């Protein structure tokens, strides 16, 4: 930039006037930004905004029950997570409640996860492992219902949707100690 500026100034001088210049070297300019961000529409944002916080903001329309989730699970999840979430070859999803203070804690959705909304958020964005972001919203709600029911957290016929899912109280919810901002940086 400085070379160009100097060149511009020299050309301006050669042209015999002050009108032409190569711009202004900005004082403290190392932190001036070129402001190249492009405005986006709400519709554009909506297409990418897939994160769901604990209060459920952003949960899409749709619904599902455990009965609807079972066949989806068997077809798309069971190969990695075992029958009825029993685990193997990958993470176990069901059971383990009451084991966290023991010698061999079993961390599952039911025993460990503090928020039910995280199931929706994570399954929709990341699962199935080989085909992420292919499940319909109804399938994701149904899988949430299936996994929560298998863990004994909701009833067999309880429907999961944008209103009910954030209200689910996870058993391990109160066993997390926040280290930020109370401690650390």
């Amino acid at each position, binding site marked *: 930039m400085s070379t160009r500026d100097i060149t511009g100034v020299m050309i301006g001088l050669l042209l015999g006037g002050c009108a032409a210049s190569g711009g202004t070297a900005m004082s403290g300019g*190392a*932190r*001036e*930004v*070129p*402001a*190249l*961000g*492009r*405005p*986006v529409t709400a519709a*554009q*944002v909506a297409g*990418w*905004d*897939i*994160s*769901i*916080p*604990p*209060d459920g903001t952003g949960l899409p329309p749709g619904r599902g029950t455990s009965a609807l989730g079972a066949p989806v699970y068997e077809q798309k999840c069971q*190969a*990695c997570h075992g029958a009825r979430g029993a685990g193997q*070859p*990958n993470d176990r999803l069901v059971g383990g409640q009451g084991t*966290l*203070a023991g*010698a061999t*804690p079993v*961390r599952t*959705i039911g025993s*460990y*996860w*503090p*928020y039910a*909304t*995280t199931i929706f*958020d*994570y399954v929709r*964005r*990341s699962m199935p*492992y080989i085909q*992420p*972001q292919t499940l319909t919203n109804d399938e994701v709600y149904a899988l949430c219902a299936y996994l929560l029911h298998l863990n004994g957290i909701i009833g067999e016929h309880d429907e999961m949707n944008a209103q009910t899912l954030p209200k689910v109280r996870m058993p391990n919810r109160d*066993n*997390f*100690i*926040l*280290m*930020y*901002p109370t401690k*650390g*940086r």
Partner: protein
Amino acid sequence: MAERMNRRRFLKHGVALAGAGGLAATPVAQVAGAEPPDIAPSMRAPGAGMSEYGSPAKYERAVTRTFIRSQPGTTGSGASRTPLESLEGVITPSGLHFERHHSGVPDIDPTSHRLLIHGMVKRPLLFSVDALLRYPMVSRVHFLECSGNSQLMYQTMPPNVTAGQAHGLVSGSEWTGVPLRLLLEEAGADPAAAWLLAEGADAAAMSRSVPMAKAMDDAMLALFQNGERLRPENGYPIRLFLPGYEGNMSVKWLRRIKVTPTPTMTKDETSRYTDLQADGKSLMFTYPMEVKSLITRPSHGLTLRGPGVQAVTGLAWSGNGTITRVEVSTDGGRAWTRAELAAPVLPRALTRFRLAWKWDGQPAVLKSRATDDTGAVQPERAKFIADHGQNGVFHYHGIVAWGVQANGEVKHVYP
């Protein structure tokens, strides 16, 4: 020179000690043609031509990332480690920087990659990589450590693996990029917003919540690592970089930042990267990596050649600040000697320490203990386990001990 040749011989013949280098047991042998008065073959004919992109010497092929492990049924959901015992200085070659991926390394064409900043902002904005490359940048030398580094130290038995295999989820680089603050200000981030969500463009859409205070302090959108554009496995074309914080939060392949009032409570900050304690409670949002060190040479799998002066060296770092002191013990922790800190000593960066040790040939236990400028001192493993229990996975930062046997062999020990 003798050390160098010996190292080569070790690498050639010592393959059984995967990832190990140096300190070979074999004495330096005379090699035909290598010593005076003979003239070396390399001086009798012109050498090779130039190359477009250089590679390590072919004699160093054994120096690779190590302990590469994936989740069952996947090739890219796992980790690889930096071979700490084979490296020197404080900058890790980019090709040996540890990896931790949650759904493989995506192939991202920078011309079609975008970063979206939205949420509690006045102006949601979309940035191309090309645009970001035109912003003012800063360069900083920092370590990056996976929260799960040294996880094996929670186990009852000392890990029977090398320094890199057990502790190599830490690497050091010079990172260059755009201060995140500049982009948040351009978007008009709400000063009342305390958090943001960072999300990657990988198949896991890996995401973490980040305190706004950190984002406005020293967070950067890294575009370059060690002078060149990021490697794909380190987030090309853009990664978030949060100095000192657990590595998982420095989201790779960054595609979206959402300014939020609260943490989003993603999978990786709830079911993962929370620290289960012995009483069944879990610590959440344990962001800075604590003060830590280990001796990298000698270390597990290497062998001392014999009694005499040994060059002890290692790495220390703290996510909370600058290393002020590293002490080394050769008697299991009874007596400590202050090691030399090799310049540069930078905040939240790997710091190299060195100490000469005259080994008498008797069994010994080597330890290092780091202190940072907050006054935090690296704890003994027994103290760390007593405080946190053995069910943890993350944030192990206790002392690492190496047992030296009379025959010169070095092993991980819990003294």
